[in-house]
Every structure is written in C-alpha cells, then in structure tokens.
C-alpha cells in the first residue's frame, strides 16, 4: 500500500516537473497573472458621476469578477491542455512502455499522472490567487484614498462635522468588508474544484482517445453542456416543456452522465457580496470529489483494458 502510494507520488512529482518545463503552460500562467493584475484597469471604466461609495462598489465588483474570471479561464486552459496531452505524449515518446515494464500498475501510473496535474493546478491557482489578493489590496488603498479625498480627511475642517465623520467611518468599513471578505476563499476553492473536475473529464477521455485535439474538443463540449445540465435535468424530470421520447432520451443521457457545472456559478454570488454558507460550499466540494473518484475509477477501468 505504502509502496504503491510512493510510486504514485514519484510519478506525480515528475509530471509536475515536466508540466512546469512546458513553455505553453508557462506563457499561459504569465498571461493569467498579467490579466488578474490588469483587472484594476477595468475598474477605471466604472460609471462616471457616482458618489464615492457607489464608485468603489462598482470598481471592486469589476476587480473581483475579472480577477476570478481570469483564474477560472486560464485555469481551465491549463487544466485542459496539460491533461489532454498526458497519455498521448507518453505514447508518442514511448516512455510509457519503459515505465509500465517496471513494477508499476497502470492504475498507479494514471493516478500519479493525475496527481501531478492536480499539483500543477494547485500551484497555478495559488499564484493567481496571490496576484488577485494583491490587486484587491491595491484597489482597497485606492478606495480609501478616494473616500478620504471626498470627506476631506486630515484637513483642518475634519472632525468638525460629526455626521460626515460617521459617514466616512461607515464607508471605510464597507470598503474593508468588501475587500477582506473571507468568502473569497470559498470562491477560490470552488473554482479549483471545477478545474480539477475538468481535468478529470479530460483524463477520462484521453484514456480512450488517440489524439490530443479530440480530447480537448470533447472536454470543452462536455464543459459547456455541463452548464446546461441542470436545465436538461429539470426538463427530463418532467418540470419543463413536453418532450418526445428521443429528446427525453438525450436529456436523460446528459443528466445521468454530464456533471452539473452550473452549480459552481454560485461563485458569482460570492463575488457579488452575497452570503454563501460554508455548508453549501462544502456540499459542492464533496460532490466534485465524489464525481472525481467516479471519473478516476472509469479512467482506470478503460486504461487497464486498453491495448497499448
């Protein structure tokens, strides 16, 4: 058991090293960091004519949306590209035969490879999140400076008007609440879970596909359909329009097999400042984990029986 785990860790570490050496992924990571940091420039396009509080609300929303959007988008690209070429590349370079000739099970090889990709995603998401936090603090600093300017903080007239001081404190508190929102950890965890799920789907497809392009396109399609799965499920369960037997069959197929990616869009609610309880986020994370176990089990079954 321990030796098996050791082999998985070694393969995972090697996969991570190999992935980090790939120029495409490095470029993607750099672009993502640039985009996350650039979200402050998008915030500059906020609606003119708003008061300090309104302006900050709009700016911080743009920074959060574009920051998390960049993490999700580039994370998706990294997950897809790195996982899709895992097995085809091993087959092309024939290194898989050398590895499997040693006392390494196919399942260990597959799990090790996937573990490496999860590590890569964790590293990328951590780096992008750090850039995101930095951007948020920069925006907070800008927001406080704006409010101080509006209320004449530090000028001789300061403290003369108790109402203004009260409003100033209220607006500073609002800025702090929006920037130092612990729920952002929930948002990043949910984005990460979605990326790992995407990676799991790509791994499953790559176990029977013979080309990287096929894996990328199919995974992308499943990802898109996943955002409509909840609608398909509702219709299939008879809560929508009348359907023919063929339509019902197709909707049932989608509902039973494709993961519900739309549930993860609650990240938008978190970014809008709405309260999402941890119990709900943990439920979604558990769903993602169980789905991942199923994807890995299917991948192992298919890969075990594949003619190499």
């Amino acid at each position, binding site marked *: 058991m321990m030796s098996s785990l050791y082999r998985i860790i070694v393969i995972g570490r090697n996969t991570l090293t190999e992935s980090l050496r790939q120029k495409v992924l490095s470029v993607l990571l750099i672009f993502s960091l640039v985009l996350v940091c650039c979200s402050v420039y*998008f915030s500059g*396009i*906020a*609606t003119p004519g*708003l008061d300090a509080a*309104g302006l900050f*609300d*709009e700016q911080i*929303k*743009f920074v959060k*949306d*574009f920051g*998390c*959007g960049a993490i*999700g*988008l580039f994370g*998706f690209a990294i997950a897809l590209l790195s996982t899709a070429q895992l097995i085809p590349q091993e087959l092309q370079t024939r290194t898989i035969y050398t590895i499997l000739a040693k006392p390494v099970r196919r399942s260990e090889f597959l799990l090790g490879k996937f573990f490496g990709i999860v590590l890569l995603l964790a590293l990328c998401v951590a780096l992008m999140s750090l850039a995101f936090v930095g951007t948020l603090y920069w925006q907070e600093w800008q927001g406080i400076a704006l409010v101080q300017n509006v209320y004449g903080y530090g000028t001789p007239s300061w403290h003369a008007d*108790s*109402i203004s001081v*009260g*409003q100033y404190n*209220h607006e500073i508190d609002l800025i702090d609440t929006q920037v130092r929102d612990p729920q952002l950890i929930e948002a990043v965890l949910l984005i990460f879970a*979605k990326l790992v799920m995407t990676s799991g789907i790509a791994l499953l497809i790559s176990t029977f596909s013979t080309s990287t392009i096929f894996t990328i396109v199919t995974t992308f399609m499943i*990802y*898109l359909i996943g*955002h*409509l799965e*909840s609608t398909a*499920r509702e219709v299939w*369960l008879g809560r929508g329009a009348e359907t023919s037997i063929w339509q019902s069959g197709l909707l049932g197929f989608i*509902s*039973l*097999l494709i993961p*519900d990616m*739309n*549930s*993860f*869009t*609650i990240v*938008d*609610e978190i*970014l*809008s*400042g*709405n309260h*999402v*309880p941890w119990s*709900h986020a943990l*439920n*979604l994370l558990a*769903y993602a984990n*169980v*789905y991942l176990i*199923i994807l890995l*089990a*299917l991948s192992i*079954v*298919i890969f*075990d*029986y594949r003619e190499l």
Partner: protein
Amino acid sequence: MTRLLVNPAAECLPLARRLRRAFLIALILGLWAPVKILWEQEIGAEQDLLRYHGVTMSRELRDQLGQDLTIGVLSGMRSVVADYIWMVDLTIAWQQQEWFKMGGYVNLCTSLQPRSIIFWDIGGWQLAWNASVAAARDHTEPDPLRRYKNSQFWIQKGLDVYLRGIANNPESWKLWADTGFLYEQRLGDIEKRNGQHQAAWDAYHKAAYYYGEALKRPGCMTFYERWPAYMYEKAGDDQAAYQAWKDLWLSLTPEEKKQKQHAAEKIESSIRDLEKKLSIPNEKRVFPN
C-alpha cells in the same frame, strides 16, 4: 475474408476483456447515476432556498447576448459577460443618449446577475434620473406635455428596475432606500412643483414606507431613521409626521440621544414645533410646557 484471417482463439480473449470492461463501466455508472441525480437535485433545491437565481439560457437571452457572449455565459463567465456589457455597451448607449438601448442593457445585466445590487441600483438611477431628465429637456420635442409624459415614462422604468431588484433581493436596504429616494425626488417633488398635490402626497407616503423598510434591513445607514418623518412633513401630513418623530424619539435610549446629539436636537425641535402646530394637549405632549 477478414474474419477468416482472425484466429478464433485469439478473438475470444479480447471479447471477454471487452465484456468485462463494459460490465465494470456499466456497474460504476449504474451505481453513480441515481446518486448523482439526487445529489444534484438537493444542491439545486439548496441554491433555490438560498435565492441563487442562476440564469436560465433562453432563446430571448441568447438573441440579446449574441454568439460570443452566449459562449461566455455557457463557460461559467456570467459575471464577466455582465460586467463587459455594463462597461462597454451600456456606457456607449448612455453617452449616445440611446435610452431604449440602455434600458435593454440594464435589463440584460440584471437578468444575468439578479443578485448583484449594483446593477439594480445604478441601472434604476440611469433610467429614472439620466434618461428621464434628458427626456424632460429634449427640445426636439416641442410639446411640453409630451416631454413631461416621456420623462415620467423613464421614471416608471427606473421604478420598475428598483421594484424588480427588491423582489430579487428583499434583504438589500440599499434598494429599498433607492426606491424611497425615487418616490421622493422623482415623483413627489416633481408632482408638488406641478401642483399635483394628491399625487405628491401619495408619492411622499410611499417614500416614507420604503425608507421605513430600508431601516428594517441590516447595514442601513442610521441617518435614514429620520427620513420617514421628513417625507410626511413634505407631504404636509403633520399628524403622521408627528407620530413618526414621536416613535423615533421614544425608540432612542438616553445613550443614543447623547451619541446622536445633532439628530436628537433635530427630532426634539420637530416634535416641539408639531405639538404646537397640532395643538396637542399638554398632558399628551412628549415635551410638555
């Protein structure tokens, strides 16, 4: 011909292997599928309960978004798409004073992110203030009555945005206060200036109601506590104003009165004035002579 070349003994093993693989896949999926459906239903019900109105992709929404942005929404980039429309399309429509187009974009953004207060808040303001004022000052329209009517049309559109915002986010004090502000400034004040006293009376009373509702929500700024009474004063309803000031005064603890000295003085002077004006008997007064 091909089949004759295949060794039947060799074919037997891959078939057994294939069948075993198919059986294992079917077993895993068969066990997982019902659990998946039930679990997803539970997550969906939980999200409904928490009022997360995830957008449903309809034909109408798809036509409004266009192909590129639809793919964005389907990729889970709903908030980024909404922000993009807000920053680019809506701002251009505003600058070019294409108010109907702007109204459409406000509806689109609020449909994509119904729980984002900022879209309702600023969207309603754009329509009830910017579009309405532009319509009132539109000198390409020579008829003043028609200008007034057009201006009122946009105020109603703005009001509609706020009311839909409240329906989607009843816990947001901001939207309740915004609606009160709209009733006060865009309906009450305008009607009062036009000599429509009954309409102004109704609008100020509604404003008082919405300010009062805002106060019941957490996070509402404390200075709003005086607004309902101000609205009754503006409406000329002295009795209601007196009652509102009195209720507010009685709700404040001595410490609060000390803390909010400026506000407390205002409340006290308003009560004294109204007691005099309404000739309240001395024994029933809050501040007897």
